[in-house]
């Protein structure tokens, strides 16, 4: 975050190419894949792509598109060409993610108890306390290991300089990890030889690590805690993932209607009667957890669940109220938050962010609307957003009015050039823009799985990687020590 907005214009820097150097040489960690690709005809590549799509369809890794007449199930496009990250680069990402999550969890523990950071004026008090994602109910509630966000899926991007930066911290109910695992299963089949030779680090232990993270949240009062996954149900677009994780952890997949709260204890209805639950890995948003505490019209959670949580008889993961730490306005303060709690410089930088609530920054944003991306603080998923360079004059004028009327509602960022990676498009290898979503687990300790979901903007030139808007994904190979590092 900066006090004085800089006037530097966004130079039309070339996006970083994951495979090729600026003088079109293949980077060393991509050499083996490049050599393999040279031996395959477009027809053979297309055939492998079809095999992969069939694998996803058979596994039922689909999302449902509800139409007027009938609903159809579609697969999320999965590109067969892996994105490769050398070990030294990964080491830096891993250290940066750990540092960041540690600071954010400390921040959550602080604002839900002493609020020291607000008293010291490092983060504006009203910014936190007035955020819709701030949960008053969480105040002074004991959270084991101060691990509020147990599962985090941060969105990283690689800037034209080659440096990775954090675009967003997802601390609520991040999804996508099943695609990371399914992409891996698929790409191992598509390029077995290349995979074997590359020294790719394994991600298979993710479900196991997730389970031990969840168990560690109740370990000090239950020797062998009963863990369940709470899903909104089969019509949720991420249902496949909920079932997948439950299956691989060996934990029951429960819905709200399976739960019963009695005397501040949570039970599930089983064939042999009621069985006590200790840890709930919930894939239901805060608002829907408990109609008595949050939204009254919700039937996705269980009445009385939050009181059982307050009483310390059950652990909800992620804790309610974590959203305040991935709020778009709080985001701008994360580097300061890291310095404040850890006394360290952030390893992974933020994207330059202008807070419209600061008058000086607002005037800079208004003067540069044609170059900036403006985002509403409370919205997500691409809603309430203005992409300056692609907007019409009328749209910009409309946003300028909204900004002036309600500045604290908006932030702005430069248009970011995502890096590109080779993708298979109609049998040809072409560059497409990608981001990177690694998954971090935090219970008794913090663990980063050496892999990630690489999301792809499949439309040529597009920067939108969301699956709802024509995005796809691909496997991400993190290479083991000494493999693929430069020199």
């Amino acid at each position, binding site marked *: 975050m900066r006090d004085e907005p800089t006037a530097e214009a966004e130079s039309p820097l070339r996006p970083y190419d994951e495979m090729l150097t600026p003088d079109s040489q293949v980077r060393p960690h991509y050499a083996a894949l490049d050599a393999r690709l040279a031996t395959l005809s477009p027809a053979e590549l297309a055939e492998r792509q079809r095999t992969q799509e069939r694998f996803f369809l*058979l596994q039922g890794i689909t999302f449902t598109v509800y139409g007027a007449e009938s609903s159809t199930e579609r697969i999320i496009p999965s590109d067969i060409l892996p994105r490769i990250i050398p070990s030294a680069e990964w080491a830096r990402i891993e250290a940066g993610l750990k540092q960041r999550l540690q600071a954010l969890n400390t921040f959550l523990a602080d604002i839900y108890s002493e609020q020291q950071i607000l008293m010291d004026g490092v983060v504006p008090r009203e910014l936190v306390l007035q955020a819709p994602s701030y949960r008053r109910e969480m105040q002074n509630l004991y959270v084991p290991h101060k691990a509020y966000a147990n599962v985090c899926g941060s969105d990283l991007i690689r800037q034209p300089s080659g440096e990775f930066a954090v675009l967003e911290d997802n601390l609520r109910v991040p999804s996508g990890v099943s695609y990371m695992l399914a992409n891996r299963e698929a790409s191992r089949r598509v390029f077995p030889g290349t995979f074997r030779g590359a020294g790719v680090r394994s991600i298979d232990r993710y479900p196991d690590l997730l389970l031990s993270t969840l168990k560690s949240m109740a370990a000090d009062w239950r020797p062998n805690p009963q863990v369940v996954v709470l899903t909104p149900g*089969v019509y949720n677009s991420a249902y496949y993932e909920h*079932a997948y994780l439950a299956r691989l952890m060996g934990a029951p997949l429960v819905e709200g209607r399976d739960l019963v709260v009695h005397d501040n204890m949570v039970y599930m209805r089983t064939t042999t*009667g009621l069985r006590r639950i200790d840890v709930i890995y919930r894939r239901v948003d805060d608002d829907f957890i408990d109609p008595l505490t949050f939204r009254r019209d919700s039937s996705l959670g269980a009445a009385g669940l939050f009181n059982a949580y307050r009483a310390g008889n059950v652990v909800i993961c992620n804790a309610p109220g974590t959203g305040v730490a991935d709020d778009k306005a709080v985001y701008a303060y994360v580097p300061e938050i890291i310095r404040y709690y850890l006394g360290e410089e952030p390893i992974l930088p933020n994207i330059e962010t202008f807070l419209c609530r600061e008058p000086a920054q607002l005037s800079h944003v208004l003067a540069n609307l044609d170059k900036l991306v403006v985002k509403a603080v409370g919205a997500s998923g691409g809603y309430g957003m203005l992409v300056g360079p692609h907007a019409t004059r009328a749209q910009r004028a409309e946003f300028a009015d909204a900004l002036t009327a309600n500045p604290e509602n908006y932030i702005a960022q430069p248009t970011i050039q995502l890096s590109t990676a080779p993708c298979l498009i109609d049998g040809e290898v072409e560059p497409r823009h990608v981001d990177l979503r690694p998954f971090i687990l935090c219970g008794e300790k913090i663990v980063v799985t050496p892999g990630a979901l690489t999301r792809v903007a499949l439309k040529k030139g597009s920067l939108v990687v969301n699956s709802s808007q024509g995005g796809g994904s691909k496997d991400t190979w993190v290479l083991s020590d000494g493999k693929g590092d430069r020199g």
Partner: protein
Amino acid sequence: MMLARVADSLYWIGRYVERAEHMCRLSDVMLNATLDRSEAATQVARIALAAVGDPDLAKAHNPYDAAQALALDREDDGSIYSSIARARENARQVRDQITTETWERLNLIYLRMSGPEAAKAFADGSQLFLHDTIADLHLFKGAGDATMSHGEGWSFLLLGVYLERAQLIGSLLEVAFGEGRKRRPISDHFALTSVLRMGCALEPYLRVYTAEMQRRYILKFLMLDEDFPRSIRFCTQEIETHLTAITRHAGISGPAGPDRIAGRLRARLQYADMAELEAQGATAFLKTVLEECSTIHRALYDAFVAYPLEDRLPA
């Protein structure tokens, strides 16, 4: 221990899969009969339609259209498509409880039946289509048998299969051999063979009773045979076995527990005497069997799925 909702879904997967398989077989026999333009063919089609519960027996004059609707009609809850779609929807809801191998088989059948090519595949070779569907349903059961743990969940799935099967075979026999209907009794060799085919019983029957087609033997075989997996007696043996296993596991048993009702039904079939049964009339006997099956279904729900919470809260 498993979630009550999950047990319920597994049970219904079993029921729908069994129903789909049976419907495929009825359609197949019906289509096969059309190759033979005799009066018996119409009679066979009528039996098949009555056995699937279709009140409009006039359709028997156009068996191909009837079979196609039975297979693919999405609006009809009783079609093969609907049964497969529901089995698969239930499987999706308990995707964490069934192995990938088992899921893949069922999903494959669903994708084929729901895909745009389904109608064409049926038109190009309806019997082949039905034959493949039956074979895939067998693969589904085989994959489940070979890869799933044979614990509580598996018992619930098989309970669904055998309860459904007992009821389907019971209805088929009632339609084919019941008294008090306006139709004259089936005696034609072709029609009798067709009934055995509908119960997938022709070859096993021949090994026991040779090619002598007698209504009485067929009734006895499909009702009381100890070893044939589609006889009602065999089904009740399996129902009792799985209910006993589940009940023991749950530690609940009472005078009206589902396992006792199942045991009583099994004993009734085990010690049934054909002469006595004929004196009483097959219809009355089959009616009792079907009623007992419904009672078991309800008792199962009361004991394991929809039990009142007050009884189970910790003191």
